[in-house]
Every structure is written in structure tokens, then in C-alpha cells.
């Protein structure tokens, strides 16, 4: 009834290869895109700057990571370090006089090369050992960033981002920063949806499912894994630069610590591995749910409904965050993407019960 089509019926290969197989999906996405583009007009600057903007940027980061973890099946627990490389590289490039547009690309390339080197070092191993190796990479990059004054400007320094313009538009007002971040996130989304349909995307999936079997059918595991690390680190590096220029605007090493890596993995898992919509939903959920729940409890505590101490309140976001990860893994391992899928399937044939799929 809502979708005007009870199931997906294709009569040609071209219809089956379409990105949006049901017209309603396409209209839904276009409507969402228009809403997102017009957000600066109807969302108050406070909410836009502190909730919507980080959500968009972290969605881009989650998309970059889910290319590696969801499609290629390579675990990465040091992705914040990749983003840190991108952020610091872009700031130093802009300071050295490179145009912003070019320095975004170059910072992506620098993170891609460093990320691929670390990834290549870890390619002999998989699973738990890959987790540990990328974790070690996180600590190494952190240490280098903190202890090389040429990068961070000193141990406890914050590095302000210089004023820049993107394609002759100054990236200064909140709306401009939001639109730049949105453009990058949308670009990544379109890329991700299409990469699944290319030979590269299929090679990644083959590697994820079983690398020996992929090698047998002619997919070079080493090359494909390296390409996965390279692509994903490139996307992560540019996202880091966008994060620095559009959101933080003053960068410290703590903004890219180990906890941020964990948060990114949590976004990818809560959203659903390898899913586009899951990356958006997961980033929003992991970022915003602890904030909203903590605000709720603290307002309840302020009104005297629940007696909790200040110490408990300050630890509450951590508790909610941990409980959220555990809850999702136990109750819905496929994440928010699966929940969305269930709802969509229900409404696809509503008011009837069963889809002919």
C-alpha cells in the first residue's frame, strides 16, 4: 500500500541491476536528501552544530570503516589514527599554502599510504591478531602525533585550522561547513552503494567470505586486501580532514584516541556490518543516544524523580554506551540496518502478512 508494489518483480536484467529497485525507495531518499540540504533553514544553529553536523561527519567515517570491515572483512581497531593522519596532514598542507581542495585529496592520499603500509604489515594475520596489530598502530600513530612537535605543535597544544574556502565559497559559516560535510558524506554514500556492484566490490566480498576460496577463483587476496586498506584509509583520511575543518576547528591528539576507534567500530556494528543505511543509523545512534539518555536522566535527577549522585551521572554516558554495544550484539547482531529492513518488509506488503520474495 505504501510502496504500491507488493514485493520486487523484475522482468529484465536492467531492472534487477537498478540501485533503487522500488520507486518509493528512490522518492524516500530524494525527500531525505532535500530535507538534509535544507536543514540549516529549519534546524536551530545549536542543534545543527552540535548534533546534525557531527552525525553527518561520523556517518562518513563509519562508511569508510565499513568498507574495510563489512565488505572486505578486515578488522580495524585503529581507524581514528587514520583519521588523525588525514586531519593533521590537511592542516599542515593548508598552512603550507596548498589550496584546500587539493590538500583534502593529498591528506587522503597520505593517510591511504600510511594506512596501507600498516595494513600490509598485518596482512599475514587475520581475526584477533589483526585487531591487535591495528590497535598497536593506533598507539604508535598517537605517540608520533603527540611527541613530534612539528605535527601537533607540542605535547598539549591545540592546532587551530586556518580559514579556507572550497571552490571559492568560504568554509566559515555553520551552514557552509555543514554543506561541505554533507556533500562529502553523500559522495561516500553514492560511492559505497556503487562499489558493491563493481568487480572490486565483489572481490572484497569474496575475500571476506573466504580468502583461500577467493584465491582459487582468481582473486589475489594480498592485492585486494591492500586495495581495501588503501581505499578505506583514503576515505577515512579525507573524513578526518573534514572533521577537523568543519567540526572541531581546533585539533588536539585526544580527539583521535583509542576510544574514538572503538566508537567507530561500535557505530559500524550497531548499524550493521557493510550496510549503507546502517552506517548512517549506527553513527547517529552511537553518537546521540548516550547524550539524550544522559540528558533525560539528569533532568529527572534535577527534578528529584530519581536520586542519583553527580558521580553516577558523570559515568552514565559510558554505561549507556557499553550497555548499548552489548545489547545490540546479543539481541540484534545484524544491527539497526536489519531492524530497518524488517520494518520496510512489513510495510512493503501491508496490510497483508507475507511478502512473496
Amino acid at each position, binding site marked *: 500500500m505504501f510502496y504500491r508494489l507488493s514485493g520486487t518483480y523484475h522482468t529484465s536484467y536492467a531492472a534487477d541491476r537498478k540501485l533503487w529497485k522500488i520507486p518509493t525507495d528512490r522518492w524516500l531518499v530524494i525527500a531525505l536528501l532535500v530535507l538534509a540540504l535544507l536543514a540549516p533553514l529549519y534546524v536551530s544553529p545549536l542543534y545543527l552544530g552540535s548534533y546534525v553536523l557531527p552525525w553527518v561527519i561520523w556517518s562518513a567515517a563509519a562508511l569508510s570503516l565499513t568498507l574495510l570491515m563489512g565488505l572486505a572483512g578486515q578488522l580495524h581497531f585503529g581507524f581514528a589514527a587514520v583519521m588523525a593522519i588525514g586531519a593533521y596532514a590537511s592542516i599542515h598542507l593548508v598552512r603550507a599554502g596548498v589550496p584546500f581542495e587539493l590538500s583534502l585529496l593529498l591528506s587522503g592520499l597520505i593517510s591511504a599510504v600510511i594506512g596501507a603500509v600498516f595494513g600490509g604489515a598485518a596482512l599475514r594475520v587475520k581475526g584477533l591478531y589483526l585487531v591487535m596489530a591495528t*590497535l598497536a598502530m593506533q*598507539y604508535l600513530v598517537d605517540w608520533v602525533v*603527540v611527541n613530534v612537535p612539528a605535527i601537533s605543535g607540542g605535547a598539549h597544544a591545540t592546532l587551530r585550522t586556518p580559514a579556507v574556502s572550497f571552490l571559492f565559497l568560504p568554509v566559515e559559516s555553520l551552514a557552509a561547513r555543514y554543506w561541505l560535510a554533507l556533500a562529502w558524506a553523500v559522495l561516500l554514500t553514492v560511492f559505497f552503494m556503487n562499489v558493491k556492484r563493481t568487480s572490486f566490490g565483489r572481490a572484497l566480498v569474496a575475500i571476506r567470505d573466504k580468502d583461500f576460496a577467493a584465491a582459487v577463483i582468481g582473486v589475489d587476496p594480498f592485492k585486494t586486501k591492500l586495495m581495501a586498506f588503501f581505499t578505506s584509509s583514503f576515505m577515512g583520511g579525507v573524513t578526518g580532514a573534514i572533521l577537523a575543518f568543519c567540526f572541531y576547528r581546533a585539533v588536539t591528539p585526544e580527539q583521535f584516541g583509542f576510544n574514538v576507534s572503538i566508537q567507530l567500530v561500535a557505530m559500524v556494528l550497531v548499524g550493521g556490518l557493510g550496510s549503507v543505511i546502517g552506517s548512517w543509523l549506527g553513527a547517529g545512534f552511537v553518537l546521540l543516544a548516550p547524550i539524550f539518555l544522559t540528558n533525560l536522566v539528569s533532568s529527572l535527577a534535577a527534578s528529584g524523580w530519581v536520586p542519583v549522585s553527580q558521580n553516577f551521572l558523570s559515568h552514565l554516558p559510558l554505561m549507556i554506551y*557499553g550497555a548499548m554495544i552489548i545489547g545490540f550484539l546479543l539481541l540484534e547482531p545484524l544491527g539497526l540496518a536489519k531492524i530497518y529492513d524488517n520494518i520496510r518488509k512489513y510495510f512493503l506488503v501491508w496490510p497483508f502478512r507475507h511478502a512473496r520474495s
Partner: protein
Amino acid sequence: MAYFIELLISGALTGLMYSLVALGFVLIYKSAGVPNLAQGALVMTAGYAVWMVMAWGLNVWIAIPIAAAIMFGFGLVVERLLLRRMVGQPVIMVVMLTLGLEILLRGLVPGVLGSTPKPIDLGIDFAPIIIGDVFINRTALYGGIVALALVGASLLFFRTRLGTKLRAVSDDHVSSWAVGISVERAIGISWGLAGIAAVVAGALWGSSQGVDWTLSALLFPAVAVVILGGVDSVPGVLVGGILVGVLGTVIPGYLDSIAGGSTRDVVTSLIILLTIMVRPFGIFGREDIERI
């Protein structure tokens, strides 16, 4: 030279105390094949448990066994409620579940019991032992001795009837079922034992630096220890611990003043990276052969 020897000894003793934390990791990995990244938080929880029992007014030597009983039960509960439902899931799910538990404990325990550092007084003199020019920290010395004893005890434990069952389970779950061993119970017991190991580690580390959330950061050196020693090897914990402790103390002892501090994390990271690149299964670990 005395400086070097002092670094060497204190490094070895610190390393032995790391191996106390790592022991719990190995106990669980060996039987269940689960990488328990919540072991640091488990040590923190155990430290809080010891402090809490002592706050009831009990002597520390009574408090530690009570805390051990509490943590044994806690380990059983964690295994029953969380990890058992993860059997057969990919490793990323298990890793993330234990990390979620780590985050939850790091928020919940200090949030409920207070986040200011809690003292645990084991009755150890703070004055160092002085041999020649070399100062030795008493807490670290006793901690090292306890670590040696505990690892020895676990080696002996694996020769008992129950330990043999645990070894069988670590070899193969299905054939253990076939000969009538309750695999679930064995894995639960290994979690309980990891809880007891966490109590010993929590009490010793808590007495040397106070009990607060920073105890959970012991996870990182402990991970280096188990990677270096081999994730499924109990003697590897000792050797790995001493190596990580010595390298992580001697190198920063000379480099920190040049490189600007906290080179210990770099050394630990490099140990992890190099081990994984050269010999991923560690010094004593068993190389797992993958079948398609």
C-alpha cells in the same frame, strides 16, 4: 650500571605483575577460544571488590578470599549471560562484546562505588629494599613472587582432574562433548578462575597505585604479554611478562628523556606489531592450522 640493573629488576618485577593480568586472558582463551578484552576491567572490578569488602571492616586477608568468591561468581555470570550466546559468532562480535563489557564496567563500577582512587593496604612496607646501589620496590617484589606462585599453581592445576577436562575442552569442543565433559561448565569455570586471577592482580596493582578506573588500562600491556608469550600458553605468560616488563622499563629509562616521554606505549606497541609480523602465535603458542 647500577641504574641499568635497577631498571632491569624493576622491569622484570613489573612484568611479572603484568603477567598476573595476562593470566586471566590466557585461562579464558585456552578453554573457550574467546579473546577477553575485558580482563583489564575485570582487574579493576576485582580491585573495587577487595576495597568494598575491606570497607565492611574486614581484615585484608579475609577480604581477598571473599572478593575472590565474588569475582568467581561474577565470571560465571558473565559467561552464562553474555558469552555463551556468542558461541559460533565471528570473532569481531566476541571482541566487541568483551570491549562493550569493558566500557560498561569502566562506567558502572566507578559510577556506583566512587571514582576517587581507593587505597588497599596489604601491609607492605613502602620503604624500598636496598641491595648495594639498587633500590627494589617491595610491592613489586611481593607481586612478582605472587605472580610466579600463581602461574606455578595454574600449571599444577592443569594436571588435576578438572584441569585435564579444561585442557580437553581447549583441544576440541565436540570431542569433549563426545566423552562426556560438560563444555559449558568447563568454560564457565575458566571464566571464574580468570575472575580469581583478577582479584590477585587487582589487590596487588591496587595497593601499588590505588584502585580507580586506570587499572583497566592494564589491558594494553597484558595484551602485549599474551601476544608475545602465545595466547594459549600459561608458561608464555611468565616469559612474555618478563620480556614486556624489562623492555618496557629499560628502553624508556634511557629514551624518555630524549624522545619526550611515554615511550613505554611505543615499546609495547612495537612488541605487539613485531610479534605478529614475525611469529603471530607467540613464543610458546600453538600455531592454529586453518582448514577450509
